[in-house]
């Protein structure tokens, strides 16, 4: 059976930490983009045209970015799960070899 282990124990730990941080931070960012927070206005990718005819277009852009953030958070959750599995496999390998 092909070994499922592809990264070392330290890589797995780093991946887990990064994924946890990514999930939390991206979910929060997504929420803040969703409520049209004014502080994040600079990060919304608007152009000059979006400022005509009221704020609807800007709000739409806000929501788009927030969905992107949620998608990224989901991907990081997958990555975290993968790192967790790798970590578990490593620990099991340590017990077996000894």
């Amino acid at each position, binding site marked *: 059976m092909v070994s499922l282990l592809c990264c070392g124990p330290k890589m797995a730990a780093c991946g887990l930490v*990064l994924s946890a*941080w*990514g999930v939390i*931070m*991206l979910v929060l960012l997504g929420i803040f983009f969703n409520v049209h*927070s*004014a*502080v*994040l*206005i*600079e*990060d*919304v*990718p608007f152009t000059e045209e979006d400022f005509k005819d009221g704020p609807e277009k800007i709000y739409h*852009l806000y929501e*788009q*970015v927030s*969905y*992107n*953030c*949620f*998608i*990224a958070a*989901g*991907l*990081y959750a997958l*990555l975290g799960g993968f790192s967790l599995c790798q970590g578990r496999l490593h620990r099991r390998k340590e017990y077996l070899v000894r």
Partner: protein
Amino acid sequence: LNPNISAFQRRFVGEVRRCEEMEKTFTFLQQELRDAGRVLAPCRDKPEAPLAREALRIQEQSEQLAQELREVSRNRASLRGRLRDLRQYLHVLREGQHFTSLPAPLGSPPRSRALSERDPLLDPSLHQHLDRKINFVAGVVHPWRVSAFERLLWRACRGYLVASFVEMPEPMEDPATGESITWVIFLISYWGEQIGQKIRKISDCFHCRVYPYPESEASRVETMNGLQTQIQDLSVVLEETEEYLAQVLDKVVLALPTWRVQVQKMKAIYLVLNQCSFDVTEKCLIAEVWCPVRDLTQVQEALRQGSYKSGSSVECFVQRIPTSESPPTLIRTNKFTAGFQSIVDAYGVASYQEVNPAPYAIITFPFIFAIMFGDVGHGLLMFLFALWMVLYENSPSLKQASNEIWLTFFEGRYLILLMGAFSIYTGFIYNECFSKATVIFPSAWSVAAMANHSSWSSAYLATHPSLTLDPNVTGVFQGPYPFGIDPIWSLATNHLNFLNSFKMKMSVVLGIVHMGFGVLLGIFNHVHFNQWHRLVLELLPEMIFLLALFGYLVFLIFYKWIKFSVADSLVAPSILIHFIDMFLFTSSADNLPLYQGQVPVQMVLVVLALASVPVLLLGTPLYLWCRRRAPRTNHPTSVATGEQEPLLEGQEAGNSVNATKEDVESGRHSADTEHLDMAEILMHQAIHTIEYCLGCVSNTASYLRLWALSLAHAQLSEVLWTMVMRNGFVRLRYVGGVLLVPVFAAFAVLTVAILLVMEGLSAFLHALRLHWVEFQNKFYVGAGYKLCPFTFTPDAWD
């Protein structure tokens, strides 16, 4: 106790030497193990230091093992050598067969200098006609010497020989250098006795190994068979030897770690015992030790147990003796305070019974760090990292890591924990979380009110890229933000203008408060050492100087913040110009006074400050001089500072006769040098005055680094966000989410590397410097030495 006796005359020198010999044997054993590729495991259990007969047993056993190892290695080496010789002989015979038995075709290939198989020079048909007796010399030669060898043979024997060279099919070890070389076999056929001798001499010169080459075919075959059997036997014997060697090494691996620890403990004990001296009857050991007063009963208890365990008839006891040496400093810490104490000790160990700044540093150090680091996100990351280290501090994998940098971080885990916690707090005050403001409370500035008031038209908006919110207009500014800085500032273009003024004043205020606190800590020192004159003649002028000038500056800052509002912002006075005018006793016309009667008040303060300088300079020296002049007549009866006691005290049971004599001698010395101290005291005081007064100014400016570093951190954080993270927010619908993943990963890695590690270390260093220099030079002397009790610490082992 016996510094006069040289190392060789001490009592236990024999035992120490024995320990060192044993350690040499151990090193030899370890070397052998390493050569064989074994790893020595560190000693797990804690063996006690062995008694004398056990030590003898260890010595015997270790020497026996070393002897065995040496013998076995020697045998193995000789067996290997023999095997090699036999193999070479076999190859020589085999290859030689090619030349002498097989007829070679005519027209031998051209002779080349390379090591290739060649046919005999002479035509074999011709060969058979010659009826002389042909002799052979066969052997192996180093490949580098082949051409020289050949040339010399040709020239010396003038063609009366046939030499053929061929490479050995497998490489073999060179006995001298140990590296693997492909030898070249040569076979020389010659006729004539003298040529034979010449050839033999030449081959000797070239360090070739010559083997006897049997003439006839049959004897050759016989020799070869004999060689084969010999080689086989030898291989078997070699195998057995290797097995035996492995067994001996196993034994060593088992026993060596424990022995090492035991012998090291023994050696340490003997080294300490060597420092004791003997009393007159040569039956007891006397030692002078430093011991904390609180632990005296414990020491007596331990001594009692020791004498009971060893079963001696006489009990050991301890007695206090007076001394004029300054004692070492012992500060008891637990795992939480140890980190803070170590950063204070790194500057200088506290002098005996001096006030210890470490308890205050527990709060001030993380706070000053946090001022330079303030960011909620980064502080949270730091806090969580330290929390992980603290919660898992008992796990063995964390404690026994060998990486030094990791160990440094681990030792300071409580430090980092507090630093992170305080950084979260200052992050909320600066309102920064990964360089974004958090809107916990609604912002106090209203753009709508300003827009309504000014009736900005579209044309106006199009031509003016930046608009001002004037707080004088009603409704625009609704009062200060409840906690921290208003989040609207993160959207303003003059964000830095506002923050700079705020942070600069904050740094100055904090600096003066910190320094004033340092001066106040000096009170503890003066009171404890009963130097009341220093309290009045030094502390008071110092405080007056500091408060009159810089305390007044702090007052001006707060007064202006409170008294002046937006209404008179156009005519608000500048504190800086007022401060400069205060020193120069001038006034500027267009700078309004802050309050009535400002000018006379400032004049009084400056005069007061200037007056305190000569008091600081001359007060203590004059006082000490007066005090010394008065009791100079009663000098002989009271000896110096009352810590000496005459010889009669310590006379019991041969108790440190040497020590008290020396003590009294050193006491007499100090009395003679008193009249020289006046100049020294004056100079010391002058230096102290200049250092203090100039230091007040420069150190206050030095605290501006709090502003500089916090600005740098904020800007770095913002740059990282705009240049890295912002690229992840694109217009694409769902692909944007996938793009955001690597962008966030890059942002995270750079945050940790640049902002946490680099900025964290930088802020740590600057906070440390502020503590060591600006804070501690107001009161700390730090000239003591640490109490180093005798312990078996595991980090003494390599």
